């Protein structure tokens, strides 16, 4: 990504959007940690993983790693239910959460940079140890602390061929 201004905007937008969407979902505040560039090309996630691919002037994907307890508490707080185990309903809600975070962030970026980015529907996985291997891309990680555990926001960007 050559345009540093665009990159900076994209990352701050993702962080801010994440905090906003989480707040609207749960009425709770989030603590974002710092941005860290990952050097290794594999990521390990325990709990729930949500992947939202996107293409346009900027292509790549968002990968959310959500602790099981965090997912359950988000789900229960929105629905008023008291689900104790991960089930399809919880997975679908996390998939849509990923779609909302990415969609809201991309909307801001598209309006500012006319980047025409479009999302693909989210994929959701659950497991105790899931490894995701990335192609050669720019990968950034931000950890958000919730009252129930952490959510990892992992973004991978690929430059469009010129």
């Amino acid at each position: 990504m050559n345009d540093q201004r665009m990159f900076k905007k994209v990352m701050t937008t993702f962080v801010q959007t994440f905090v906003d969407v989480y707040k609207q979902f749960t009425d709770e505040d989030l603590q974002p940690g710092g941005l860290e560039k990952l050097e290794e090309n594999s990521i390990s996630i325990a709990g729930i993983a949500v992947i939202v691919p996107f293409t346009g002037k900027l292509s790549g994907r968002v990968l959310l790693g959500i602790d099981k307890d965090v997912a359950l508490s988000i789900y229960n707080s929105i629905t008023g239910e008291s689900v104790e185990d991960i089930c399809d309903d919880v997975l679908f809600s996390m998939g849509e959460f990923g779609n909302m975070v990415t969609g809201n962030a991309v909307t801001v970026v598209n309006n500012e940079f006319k980047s025409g980015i479009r999302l693909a529907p989210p994929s959701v996985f659950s497991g105790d140890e899931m490894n995701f291997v990335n192609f050669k891309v720019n990968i950034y990680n931000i950890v958000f602390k919730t009252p129930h555990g952490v959510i990892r926001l992992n973004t991978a960007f690929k430059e469009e061929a010129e």
Partner: protein
Amino acid sequence: MARILVIDDSPFIFKMVNRALANTSHEVVGHARNGEEGLRMIRELNPDIITLDITMPVMDGIQTLKSLSENGIDVKIIMMSAMGDDDLINEAKKFGVKRFISKPFKPDILVETIDNILKD
């Protein structure tokens, strides 16, 4: 009172729409998980209003608008998406869409939008 079809790939959104409308006079008549299913269910169920997502597999929201227009299907449309950049909004407006709700949505916004669209 309106009969509403939800077209959205997420069962979670269908659930939230049902919850939002539970204590109103409106009725949610079905859930289609993409535009293709949506077109079929519109013909079957003849809803007054559809809520239409943008990011969906098989046929997305904008393709669905094209298809509705090509097939001369007349139904009131509320776009309900996490995506809402100017280009997408303008594209939807070309097909006569006037109502947009951004996800995540508050239940009363949905109720208010339905009440308004019924007056259009």
